[in-house]
């Protein structure tokens, strides 16, 4: 095989299990690719040496035919998942030197299945952002560039290091987390697949918390099949996360190819919004046609509270953020300011120095909306809106099995283009955030290119815990789209 790193996860799995290639050969190829890919800044921490040791162990297991479902397959881990003995930063200065003495459940599930860890990928600080530009470790560059320009573009966010690593062949697949769109939006703007499972499908234990009622881990992969393979291993019920739900995890990969004859696909009319480029809406129509051609029934549905989803999110998420981030106090772990007068001064200075601008902004918003006199006007109202938003979906799903929408309001944009006005950045999540508020599963599938050669994604939204149907529909979109594009490897010079 000419380039091992260009394989899909499924192809690599089959090749390793058939002993056509060893995990060490495969892992070695990725370690080299990661070194060459440093200009992208996709990884905060590379773990090449440890990866080669893990690969060696995998090769021994495979020789004895003892391999797990992901035996010997090298993956990238978003640097929000705690990994025992490997620095975990959340891309924040406040956790810059934090080395967890424990492992997140999702990553433990991956290692138990035999996967190999290549390193920890970059992200927006504490997963707060849509462009990976709020990272304390610098921005990540999208492997894709417009056909008419050499300007660096953002890889989306917050899982921007993971999306860039998958698109640039710096891993077979990666983990991400999605609080308002942080898996699906970066996957869309890098031409790859990103799946946010139902809230409660994957354990949140050991994932640095941002907004606990919205956060959910999921896979970022080259294909829908790879997402099915990853989810099967990542998902589990966990005594360490009381919100993880005890629903059986099916073999998603086996259920992929059932076809979509008779599947009812809802098109929510409120997702046709002003200011979205015509090519986005054209691709959306094309997506519906693809599904119809394969036997699906297209139905128009209404989600009347859609326009209130983003403002609702920007109350709920900062409120939970201000509470979750109260633990960073400079005492037990993380950054501590020097020269503090007293304990309060120590807290204030450590937090002021340790948190970046966007994180500070959200802590302040959250503190304000939870403070005496404003709780009812903001937080309580937002929680009621959340009920209405979820109710919209419940009613829509009486008429359809999945929903089809665009993933993002545009393709990847230039680094620095949206950093002045926070609201402009927030609008990146206009199509994805509703799904988190309602706790539903959603997936982005690469579906086409813009006139300038940049990837665009389509989003499918499923019923709670029906990832199997969601993946089957996504597989149908993927088959019809036949998206075979990859970015030119301009960093390999």
């Amino acid at each position, binding site marked *: 095989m000419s380039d091992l790193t260009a394989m899909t996860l499924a192809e690599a799995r089959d090749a390793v299990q058939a002993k056509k290639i060893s995990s060490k050969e495969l892992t070695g190829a990725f370690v080299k690719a990661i070194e060459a890919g440093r200009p992208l800044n996709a990884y905060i921490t590379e773990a090449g040496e440890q990866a080669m040791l893990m690969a060696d162990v995998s090769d021994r297991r495979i020789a004895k035919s003892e391999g797990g479902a992901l035996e010997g397959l090298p993956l990238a881990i978003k640097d929000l998942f705690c990994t025992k003995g490997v620095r975990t930063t959340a891309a924040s200065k406040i956790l810059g030197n934090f080395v967890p003495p424990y492992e997140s459940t999702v990553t433990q599930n991956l290692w138990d299945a035999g996967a190999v860890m290549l390193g920890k990928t970059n992200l927006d600080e504490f997963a707060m952002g849509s462009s990976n530009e709020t990272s304390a470790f610098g921005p990540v560059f999208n492997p894709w560039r417009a056909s008419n320009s050499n300007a660096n573009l953002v890889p989306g966010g917050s899982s921007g290091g993971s999306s860039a690593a998958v698109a640039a062949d710096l891993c077979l697949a990666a983990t991400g987390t999605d609080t308002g769109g942080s898996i699906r939006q970066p996957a869309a703007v890098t031409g790859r697949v990103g799946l946010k499972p139902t809230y409660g499908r994957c354990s949140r234990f050991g994932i640095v918390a941002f907004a606990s009622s919205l956060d959910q881990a999921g896979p970022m992969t080259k294909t829908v099949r790879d997402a099915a393979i990853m989810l099967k291993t990542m998902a589990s019920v966990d005594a360490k996360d009381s919100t993880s739900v005890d629903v059986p995890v099916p073999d998603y990969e086996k259920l992929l190819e059932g076809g979509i004859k008779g599947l009812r696909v809802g098109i929510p009319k409120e997702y046709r919004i002003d200011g979205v480029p015509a090519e986005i809406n054209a691709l959306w129509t094309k997506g519906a046609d693809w599904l119809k051609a394969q036997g699906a029934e297209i139905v128009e549905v209404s989600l009347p509270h859609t326009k209130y989803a983003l403002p609702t999110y920007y109350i709920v998420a900062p409120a939970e953020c201000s509470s979750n981030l109260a633990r960073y106090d400079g005492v037990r772990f993380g950054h501590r300011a020097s020269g503090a007068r007293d304990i309060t001064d120590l807290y204030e200075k450590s937090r002021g120095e340790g948190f970046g601008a966007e994180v500070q902004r959200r802590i302040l918003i959250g503190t304000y909306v939870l403070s005496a006199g404003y709780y009812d006007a903001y937080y309580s109202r937002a929680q*009621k809106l959340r009920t209405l938003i979820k109710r919209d979906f419940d009613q829509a799903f009486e008429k359809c099995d999945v929903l089809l929408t665009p993933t993002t309001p545009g393709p990847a944009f230039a680094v620095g283009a949206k950093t002045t006005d926070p609201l402009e950045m927030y609008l990146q999540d206009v199509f994805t955030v509703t799904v988190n508020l309602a706790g539903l599963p959603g997936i982005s599938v690469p579906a086409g290119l813009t006139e300038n050669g940049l990837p665009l994604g389509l989003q499918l939204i499923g019923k709670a815990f029906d990832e199997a149907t969601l993946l089957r529909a996504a597989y149908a979109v993927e088959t019809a789209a036949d998206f075979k594009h990859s970015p030119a490897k301009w960093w390999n010079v």
Partner: protein
Amino acid sequence: MSVDKDTVRRIAKLARLAVPEARLEPMAGELNGIFQWVEMLGEVKVDGVPAMTSVVAQKLKWREDQVTDGGKADELMINAPDGTDHFFVVPKVVE
């Protein structure tokens, strides 16, 4: 309703966040932009709508009241910015 410099100072105090004096005014501007946008939620009638408590209908889990983990004082101190033996060192709290 609009957020002024003093309000930002007060929230920052509540959040135990040192915001430099020069950042208070610009921060008030940024927060106002966001709060003005959020005001649109006021259009929606929410009388009688229950507040969301959980997106997934499930009963709270129960478990035996038993110690399942512990005895890891050494590990807990690994990341302490300042510590001695099994104690975190902080500035003097009681005079």
